[in-house]
């Protein structure tokens, strides 16, 4: 029996045969309906385009102020970096880490590693160290929470609206565009297909 044609559901462990999928089709577990694998046609170009777009928006979202606040001539602006810097300096390094990892570190690693794998794949090659990279990518995905941060910005702005004049910065728009684009990149990215290119552990 050829084991490579089999897949065990990662949620309920049911053993089943892989079948050929229609374009953009999804293979689900026949018992618990978990998504097991996806169709792979043309995914590299789609994923690469969206991930490159995400990278540009991510840089803008980090470099520019998200919001500004004006109270009686006093003006403060905050970028993501300022936010972390202020928290760190006032002795709340723990909170700075709780915020910085999911909003800045994890998404940066996620975008970076996806591009690292996608560029060589575009030329039909497998990047060096693809195995640990794929494994780390799986781990880092859970801790990347920019969509939650976006809603957080909106809640904070509403709270401040009553006491001060609020300016919306470029980075806020960049965040708004980045979040759907990153979601598209991640769903286009097909680790299952990359694994089939891995020939064997060294």
């Amino acid at each position, binding site marked *: 029996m050829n*084991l*490579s044609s*089999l*897949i*065990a559901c*990662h*949620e*309920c*462990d*049911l*053993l089943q045969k892989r079948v050929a999928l229609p374009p953009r089709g999804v293979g689900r577990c*026949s*018992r*618990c309906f978990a998504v*097991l694998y996806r169709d792979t046609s043309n995914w590299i170009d789609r994923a690469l385009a969206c991930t490159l777009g995400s990278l540009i928006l991510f840089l803008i979202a980090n470099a520019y102020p*998200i*919001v500004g*606040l004006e*109270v009686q001539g*006093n003006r*403060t602006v*905050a970028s993501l970096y*300022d*936010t*972390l810097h*202020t*928290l760190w300096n*006032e002795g*709340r390094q*723990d*909170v*700075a880490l*709780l*915020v910085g990892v*999911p*909003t800045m570190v994890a998404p940066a690693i996620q975008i970076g590693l996806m591009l690292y794998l996608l560029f060589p794949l575009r030329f039909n090659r497998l990047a060096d160290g693809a*195995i640990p990279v*794929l*494994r780390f990518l799986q781990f880092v995905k*859970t801790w990347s*929470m920019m969509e*939650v941060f976006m*809603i*957080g*910005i*909106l*809640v*904070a702005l*509403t*709270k*401040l609206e*009553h*006491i001060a004049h609020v300016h919306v910065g470029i980075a806020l728009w960049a965040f708004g565009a980045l979040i759907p684009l990153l979601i598209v990149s991640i769903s286009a990215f097909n680790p*299952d297909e990359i*694994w089939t290119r*891995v*020939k*064997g*552990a*060294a």
Partner: protein
Amino acid sequence: MTGIEVTAGQLGFYSCHSCNLVSKATPDHHEAHCARCGSHLHLRKPNSISRAWAYLIASYILYVPANVLPIMHTSSLFGAQSDTIMSGIVYLWTSGSWHLALIVFIASILVPSAKLLALTFLLISVQRRSVWDPMQRTRIYRIVELVGRWSMLDIFVVAILVALVQLQSLATIKAGLGAVAFGAVVVLTMIAAMEFEPKLIWDPKRNRHGQAAG
């Protein structure tokens, strides 16, 4: 559904946690590695129940300071004020933003407490080898995995407020210890959900149908 439902575990087949490659067990049981990606192979995540319990109990303990201690301190010309999660929601509600109050209430109160209870329920059911509706329990597990991250919302709100409201003489906001405890609860329950092995939900079902226990 067909009559023949067999899991990889029953046949003694390993399914790699990283790359999903199915492989046969080798005679050397203790040190099985995936032939493709080299990951350690296990039929089920090792000690998942006790590990998940450990993280879950730690979350329950921290849940108390997370809700009792202030998550931020505001000092302004009109005096100083400390806010807990609940008082922040009450403020949003009374100042007229009931829709935001609702979002924060769901993200900070409803989701974390429901998540703690759901994980407790799943762990107990798995430990007692319950056969009650595995599909329904799998759904609960998926929801827990999906919504857990949204509880970070309040931490992010506090962080942004702290960064913005630094108006020297007028007002400053500092993050409180409650924020640390609350963040820890969110992270710990996320780890507990990751340690939990959903395959255990389906395992007892097989044994009732007269097949050999694993």
